[in-house]
């Protein structure tokens, strides 16, 4: 029978939750890297036992850990993230230019074909790549030439948080940055261009239609339809049908179109999930009700999924990297909260159970469907 491995990064360590394909009983590992912030863990699609983790600390900086046995044991690999050449400057809070400074890795995206190749999204925003299993990292510097001097940090920092790879077109990569927007390369990172047309940020930017500067919280795509992208922006849920050349709003009947994660059903490319949050100034669920919203029409028409989720007195947040899906039938959906719960649905979101309740604040959730 298939199995599921859920990789959970938290403010105080990493946890691995495992279950068989029924997804009813879960085992929770002992904490790994206890006391460190684990921004993200992810496994290689071609070698599920090869895992990478971003381990960070305000005291001790960045460590990258690698496991070759599905998370039973780990070893630190390279942690030198050096910007290519003269780092240059970006927009700072006070309107001046500020030098790029490496702070941490927000997101690790293993290659779809090679377990030794991994992309890393960094704060201050930049894209790095290893091709030797994490031993060494090199920047893909052309990204920051895409009007990088106009990028500026959001309240949470200027992080590159989303990396989408395309199995059919290995030279195409999308990245998303807060607060700069979406960027696309079609030549393996040699050149990049902003892909933000149609985004509107009237409360955040002097020019609401600016080419860069939008606070994109997350983008997602179904592997079978990589030209269709979905986005949870700071405000607005957006959709692109032309690989990011243009975007249109699909917030529809959501109670709030502010939020952080967005994800796509494993088998239904038009079924998408978001978690509405009240507002940018109040990072809590509307009405104290934790609700996942599902659209089966690729946006605009949304239904609240509440069965098994707290429907009163709930004031947790769900961060951008804290939602994932498995590829079983029916599709499983998972998300973690800043209150330390990880909820799972084994029926595409119709009902939910907490598979763990009392972890530290959850920063990221990834799911591996094991043979």
């Amino acid at each position, binding site marked *: 029978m298939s199995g599921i491995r859920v990789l959970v990064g938290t403010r105080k360590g990493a946890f691995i939750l495992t279950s068989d394909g029924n997804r009813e009983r879960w085992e929770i590992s002992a904490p790994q890297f206890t*006391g460190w912030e684990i921004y993200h863990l992810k496994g290689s699609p071609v070698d599920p036992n090869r895992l990478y983790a971003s381990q960070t600390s305000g*005291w001790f900086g960045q460590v990258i850990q690698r496991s070759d046995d599905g998370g039973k044991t780990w070893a630190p690999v390279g942690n*030198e993230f050096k910007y290519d050449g003269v780092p240059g400057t970006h927009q700072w809070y006070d309107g001046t230019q500020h030098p790029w400074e490496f702070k941490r890795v927000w997101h690790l995206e293993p290659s779809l074909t090679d377990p030794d190749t991994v992309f890393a999204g960094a704060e201050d925003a930049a894209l790095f790549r290893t091709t030797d299993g994490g031993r060494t990292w090199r920047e893909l510097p052309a990204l920051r030439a895409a009007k990088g001097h106009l990028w500026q940090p959001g309240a949470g920092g200027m992080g590159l948080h989303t990396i989408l790879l395309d199995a059919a077109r290995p030279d195409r990569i999308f990245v998303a940055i807060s607060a700069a927007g979406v960027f696309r390369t079609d030549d393996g990172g040699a050149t990049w261009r902003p892909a933000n047309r149609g985004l509107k940020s009237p409360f955040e930017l002097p020019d609401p239609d600016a080419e860069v500067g939008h606070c994109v919280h997350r983008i997602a795509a179904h592997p079978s339809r990589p030209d269709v992208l979905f986005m949870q922006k700071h405000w607005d849920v957006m959709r692109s049908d032309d690989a990011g050349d243009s975007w249109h709003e699909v917030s529809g009947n959501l109670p709030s179109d502010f939020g952080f994660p967005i994800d796509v059903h494993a088998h239904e490319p038009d079924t998408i999930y978001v978690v509405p949050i009240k507002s940018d100034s109040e990072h809590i669920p509307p009405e104290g009700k934790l609700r996942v919203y599902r659209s089966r029409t690729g946006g605009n028409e949304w239904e609240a999924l509440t069965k098994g989720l707290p429907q009163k007195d709930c004031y947790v947040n769900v961060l951008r990297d804290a939602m994932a899906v498995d590829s079983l039938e029916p599709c499983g959906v998972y998300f973690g909260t800043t209150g330390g719960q990880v909820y799972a649905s084994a029926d595409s979101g119709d009902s939910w159970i907490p598979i763990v309740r009392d972890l530290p604040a959850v920063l990221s959730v990834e799911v591996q469907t094991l043979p």
Partner: protein
Amino acid sequence: MIRVVLPCHLRTLARADDEVRIEVGRPATQRAVLDALEARYPVLRGTIRDHATLRRRPFIRFFACSEDLSHESPDARLPEAVLTGVEPFLIVGAMAGG
């Protein structure tokens, strides 16, 4: 032989004992101690000092002989009691973050 005490998280990361004893050539400075420490435990590179500038990370402190040496020049000679192994060189995670 110089005795170096690491903070808990770095002991775990380096899989080192509570106290590490390292040989350092003369002149024995803060820089020489950290160079030797990182040579023995490469995983500590970047965790105490910045990779590129080799400056102390902001929330790391260096104590010895009841003194805060954090703001001393990295090339200043360490106290005699540290050089002779009577007192350890303490690498400390600063109180920060609540």
